[in-house]
């Protein structure tokens, strides 16, 4: 079974995979994951890496990063990696008990979330992409960060003879613009091409030396011009990087979990939330979703269950989780409607694969604030307090809106602030979590029949 963990960068893919594998290997409190709660899973183990050309997911080192004295969240993922975990279980049905193997192999792929942004490029030509990117950069919230690049753009003439140095310089300025838009205070998401932000093995390759031009979608680029050079680079970028990545890892998924870092986007404001919605909608149209039939089983399976999860739900009190789920529903509404129409099962939940906080309530001037308590990361700022990563603090992040639409229309600016916390210490060998068991039940539960 292939489980697709989809999520943009910093959505928590690596932590989710680590927590999932840890939960399967070590058990833990999984009351809603029925197979495990009934004790039907007898043994789980990591298989040797099945694919010799792919690095193995560094489960052990991620786990080491999460534990110990100077524990920290894993570094952002720089390259693709894969893991196969096998669960042995007692089948329930008569036939399966006697003839089935009682084994479930789960393949999980981890990769930099930035690369996902490339998937929509497969359906766009260079000129279309150029026009769309330039148009988006001319309106808020991108406009204020795009000055340098716009100046560069004005100096480029698509019809001039091709010049390698000019192409490289343009790509550099464009990359700087993209990475500025990704910083925490802006937190935009729709920033293709993803390899510009996270080049992986392609750093410095001519494949990455292109940038959009200020042209119309219908422009014809003459041979030998700068525009034609950039167009050729773009086409080969899509053909040699994006397509193999997609067809190698995402075209044959059975189940999909879409991790969405809603809270960071809310931190940055309505612009970021809107951008996140756009990015997710574009990415999710690339996947084959829908219920499976005999034919689809033979000729390419479809994803029949999709879980949309708002990650880092531990930065909120549980009484706000419903509101968070509503905001997520709004963000993925289009993608959800499409998948539902195709017949896939859908669930939305607020998830924390590893829960870093406890809950507390603080009474202040006859008002009870539902807080979360934990150790904020060093350098996090809230109001006048700056945290050093050693002190424990109770945080009231502000009330999420009861009406999910206000997350998109900008009426919330400045009323929410979510602080990141240090990873927790494991309790009885297992990490605390929020609804990881429910996510596992939804994604894997029926495969343990």
């Amino acid at each position, binding site marked *: 079974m292939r489980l697709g963990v989809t999520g943009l960068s910093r959505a928590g893919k690596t932590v989710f995979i680590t927590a999932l594998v840890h939960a399967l290997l070590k058990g833990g*409190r999984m*009351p*809603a994951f*029925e197979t495990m*709660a*009934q004790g039907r899973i007898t043994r789980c183990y990591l298989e040797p890496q099945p694919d010799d050309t792919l690095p193995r997911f560094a489960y052990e080192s991620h786990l080491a990063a999460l534990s110990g004295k100077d524990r920290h969240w894993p570094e952002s993922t720089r390259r693709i990696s894969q893991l196969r975990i096998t669960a042995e279980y007692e089948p329930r049905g008569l036939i399966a008990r006697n003839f089935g193997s009682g084994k479930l192999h789960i393949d999980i792929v981890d990769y930099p979330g930035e690369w996902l942004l490339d998937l929509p490029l497969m359906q766009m030509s260079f000129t279309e992409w150029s026009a769309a990117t330039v148009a988006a950069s001319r309106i808020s919230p991108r406009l204020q960060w795009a000055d340098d690049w716009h100046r560069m753009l004005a100096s480029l003439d698509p019809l001039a003879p091709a010049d390698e140095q000019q192409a490289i310089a343009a790509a550099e300025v464009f990359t700087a613009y993209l990475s500025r838009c990704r910083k925490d205070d802006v937190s935009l998401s729709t920033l293709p091409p993803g390899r510009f932000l996270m080049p992986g093995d392609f750093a410095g390759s001519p494949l990455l030396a292109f940038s959009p031009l200020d042209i119309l979608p219908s422009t014809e680029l003459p041979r030998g011009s700068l525009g034609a050079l950039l167009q050729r680079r773009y086409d080969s970028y899509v053909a040699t990087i994006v397509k193999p990545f997609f067809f190698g890892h995402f075209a044959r998924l059975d189940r999909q979990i879409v991790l969405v870092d809603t809270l960071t986007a809310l931190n940055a404001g309505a612009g970021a939330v809107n951008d996140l919605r756009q990015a997710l909608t574009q990415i999710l149209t690339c996947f084959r979703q829908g219920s499976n039939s005999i034919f689809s089983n033979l000729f390419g399976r479809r994803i029949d269950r999709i879980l949309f999860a708002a990650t880092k739900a531990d930065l909120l009190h*549980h009484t706000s*989780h419903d509101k968070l789920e509503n905001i997520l529903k709004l963000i993925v509404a289009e993608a959800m409607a499409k998948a539902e129409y195709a017949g896939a099962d859908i669930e939305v*939940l607020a998830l924390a694969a590893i829960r870093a906080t406890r809950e507390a309530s603080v009474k202040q001037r006859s008002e009870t604030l539902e807080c979360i308590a934990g150790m904020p990361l060093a350098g996090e700022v809230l109001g006048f307090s700056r945290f050093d990563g050693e002190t424990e603090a109770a945080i009231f992040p502000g*009330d999420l809106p*009861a009406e999910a639409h206000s997350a998109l229309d900008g009426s919330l600016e400045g009323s929410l602030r979510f602080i990141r916390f240090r990873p927790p210490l494991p309790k009885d060998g297992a990490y605390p979590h*929020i*609804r990881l*068991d*429910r996510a596992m039940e939804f994604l894997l539960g029926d495969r343990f029949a």
Partner: protein
Amino acid sequence: MTEGHRNPKAFVIDEPKPGEKLAETPKRKPRAITGITFEPEHDDMALIVVPPKPPAPSRSMRWGGILLAALASLVSLWAGLAVTQLVEEFFVRSPILGWIALGVAAIAGFAALAIIFREIWALARLSRIEHIQADAAHAINTDDSPAAKRAVSHLQNLYAGRADAQLSLRDLKQYDTDIIDGRDRVKLAERHLVSPRDDEAHRIIAHAARRVTLLTTVTPTAALDILLVAALNLRMMREVATLYGGRPSLLATLRLARIVLGHLAVTGGLALSDNLLQHVVGKGLLGRLSARLGEGAVNGILTARVGLAARDVCRPIPQETSAKETLGSLIRELVSEAGEPKAE
């Protein structure tokens, strides 16, 4: 021009002086009312249905009720008078006998009071189970967290005094502070506290059904038959109720029987398949062997149905799996047992 035209005018509004009337009508600030909760829409795919309540007693019976109440109070007055007279007569005869009689009467009165309290308590317990059922069904259907918490904590109270539930209660306790959604919390409590009892309930029902089959087969007269079947059914209902946490006494059992009958009346789909089954089993297969045995089997199936209805009514968390399937398995068990007659 002069008729239709109205000149501009200014009116002076006499405002109340500050502090004069302000105290009476405080200004209301504009405010946003948040936290309005709307009932979430039901997902009809996996709706769990709570067993129906018995129909409310009709209002037209009021005179009959008054008559009954009046007669009952007359009888109790008469009984009180008779006892008082009896004690007085004893006092006339000898003071020692009188005191003894008074003591015995007091003990009897105390016992009667205790019985009344027990009945009330048992009825309350039955209605508590009904509340838990309603909360649990609501929590499962709408994933409502507060209802789930309420249902689970009531369930824990219900089983708090039972020795066989202590281990499960302790297991369940560790999840109290975890963040679990409503549906999952109810399922968790079900798995820990209720599901272990299902097998036992199945055993009780199967046992009663077998017994009814056997006794109907061997009893000589039809009248005795009816009495036996009724008695055994009541006993089975009580056993099932006790198993799931009720404390059925006389009144509670009667109420239980009423609910069960109501439940049976509503589940019509079951009856249809059942009729067919009765036909096959009663007149066909077993009837060929012996008429009495066929009747016995039919009575057994009836008992099984009553038992399943009783289980639906008594189980604190309504069940998702269909009762039909379970009836099938019960009947198979019954027929295979009855087919090769075995001494109970």
